[in-house]
């Protein structure tokens, strides 16, 4: 198979030693079918084992390997190197604090994620013995797309609101909350809508649509945010009409 040599410029940062992130260049013999991740792994295995990055599945489903490639957020195991010239810049995902090299801090996201109650809420849990719920194909397709998020965080890197307003819970968390709201088995929409009406959630979104453009799984978080905005308003208006827990 054909090989070409490309230069990779990696962000390096070790808080034990460095005051600020710096860059380091590596020359790598690249096979024509390689993804960006293959080159980073080659650097780690064969040239500089001190390079730190996250990855696991190498099949675009575990969500670990998001990085900036020439300034754009990409899933590196899915991004073909043949689409790039002979100089490729790799940085940690934008809009997140750097832990080390290409590894970013995810703890803030994990809290946001939990705040939308991403689980089925029901007044009464059904027992296993009662069998499964019925769900029509239409009911399934109302939320299916929004359940495909792999938490790769590319959308947070692309989002102009996240960049300015770090408390914004962000596209993936909203899409997930909305996913449960749209599930015919769930009864928790009013709790989540309340959360959505708080500051730093759906109404912070400026509908830039960047999130949907970078999403490697076609989740379309921008559509979720928009629908969630609408539902949160309707839900609020209903509350005005029927103040004391009317249905």
């Amino acid at each position, binding site marked *: 198979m054909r090989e070409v040599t490309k230069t990779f410029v990696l962000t390096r940062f070790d808080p034990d030693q460095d005051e600020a992130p710096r860059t380091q260049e590596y020359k790598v013999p690249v096979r024509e079918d390689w993804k960006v991740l293959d080159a980073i792994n080659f650097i780690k295995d064969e040239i500089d084992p001190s390079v730190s990055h*996250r990855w*696991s599945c190498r099949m675009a489903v575990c969500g670990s390997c998001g990085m900036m490639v020439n300034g754009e957020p990409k899933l590196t195991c899915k991004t073909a190197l043949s689409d790039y010239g002979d100089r490729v810049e790799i940085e940690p995902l934008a809009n997140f604090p750097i832990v080390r090299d290409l590894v970013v801090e995810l703890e803030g996201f994990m809290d946001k994620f939990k705040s939308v109650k991403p689980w089925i809420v029901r007044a009464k849990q059904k027992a296993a013995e009662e069998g499964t719920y019925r769900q029509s194909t239409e009911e399934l397709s109302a939320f299916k797309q929004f359940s495909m998020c792999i938490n790769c965080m590319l959308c947070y890197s692309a989002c102009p609101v996240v960049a300015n307003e770090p408390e914004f819970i962000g596209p993936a968390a909203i899409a997930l909350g909305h996913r449960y709201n749209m599930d015919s088995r769930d009864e928790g929409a009013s709790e989540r809508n309340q959360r959505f009406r708080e500051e730093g959630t759906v109404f912070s979104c400026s509908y830039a649509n960047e999130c949907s453009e970078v999403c490697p799984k076609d989740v379309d978080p921008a559509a979720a945010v928009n629908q969630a905005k609408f539902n949160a308003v309707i839900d609020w208006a209903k509350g005005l009409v029927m103040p004391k827990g009317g249905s």
Partner: protein
Amino acid sequence: MSAIDLYRHDIIIVGGGGAGLRAAIAAAEADPSQSIALVSKVYPMRSHTVSAEGGAAAVARADDTLEMHGYDTVKGSDFLGDQHVIEYFVEEAPKELTLLEHWGLPFSRNEDGTVATRAFGGMTTKRTWYAADKIGFHMLHTLFQTSLKYDNIVRYDEHFVSKLLIANDGSCRGVAAHDIRTGEMKAIIGKAVMLTTGGGGKIFPFTTNGMIKTGDGMALAYREGVPLKDMEFVQYHPTGLPGTGILITEATRGEGGYLTNKDGERFLVERDYGVGSKAELGPRDMISRAIVQEIEAGRGLSGPYGDYVNLDLRHLGEAKIDERLPFVRLLGRTYVGVDPVKDPLPIRPVVHYMMGGVDTDIDCATQLSGLYAAGETACVSLNGANRLGSNSLTECLVFGARGARHMTQYAKSIGQIDDKALVEQAKAEADRIDQLRGRQKGGEKLSEIRRKLNEAMESGCGVYRQQDTMKACLQDVSQLRGRVADLQLTDPSRVFNTEVIAALELANMVDVAEALAASALSRKESRGAHTCKDYPHRDDQNYLYHTMCTFSPSGPVIGKKDVTLGHWEPEERKY
């Protein structure tokens, strides 16, 4: 000695994949007042359960029975599965999948809104519940998201467990966990520990497994004297993409796909490979052997990553492929540049799953008091010599839950824990890792040793095995043990030092590989996935037992354990 931090919980679960998350939820429900530590070397939603595509098995249809699921599993196991375990499994399976449905898993549906099932290899009827071709992803995320609602589950994300902590009375009462973010060592102490660390496919070069599947839990238990059971049985999945080893799910054949050779022949139909009328839906061990034979007979095709055969889905049509197998289409296009709607996919057998693992009883308890194991890292003896596709996700649920409930009871019977010995061990472990980090003095290169290990395993423990190559493999692996002790590591940082993690993982891989090779060498018959050219037949007279491999400083020691038979008598395995 290094300073360490001490954390106390009632029970500790190591691993945040399907088995670990199910166990954590079961434990949280069994006793809402107990504190559960969930320790994982990656964020739980990155666990390799995420990659499962095809589905999860449980009786669902009117034309199906528990008896049939049980028999299929026993026969698939080549009669090495324990029948009391199998009976319990098939009975619990529908309940567990129903719970997942209640928790929001987006299963694909029939027209009437009931959960849809598909055909899978070695299963008599359609009993594999699916979510298009992403069951593992949805199962893992559903479990993880559901686990967030229990405040008594305390997560230690990105913490690498490098040692079990053993109390003075010899029981397991905690783990030493290296916080990858900070490089600090934590002693996490509790009354019982469950290992749910997944398989170890990465000891082989060509595998469907992700980078994190390094057999850690097996090595942790093995080093404390717990036997590894039936390690010789490694499942080769028939359909991996050449080069990367990325899996193309058996659901492709469940939905009607064909395997063809260079002449376009459906060789499973044309020649007798033992699969009978099941053809492409025969069990994995048999189909993998058939592909190797086709290739050896010169009927394969050749490509940049070696010889292969074709998986032809074209006749299913674009609509069905997009509805049922959208991920397969994406994988084909992205990783081999083939759109299965238009062209056949190149595939070849690939290391996929370990039937063997940490020996447990039906309650997931090991021989070491306080230590439990479930999921792929364990061997509760559901799968015997060959697992049926789609049984293992269900296994993670059924036994994750059972083990957690049992552990909860066990923990209640344990009084005050004397921390002293445990803390000492964690400190010693911290010192060991401190010395490893940035260790310049060694002479060996990590990636080179890993490559050597991979080569040895491929040449000795492949689809077809021989006594002489297995012997050579065992020798090579044993030699690598010494070389792993002499690694040169260049990264001195305490923060997110993935080099030191890779070194710890490599040592685990060598332990697992050595146990595997020794177990394989000891079984002088062919059964399930273990096919020995020198001993081509199953030998119930001499080998109807579980292989038990125990660690000793001078090398693995092989023993035996009885198979629990029941009302299904061993018979010739022919389809």
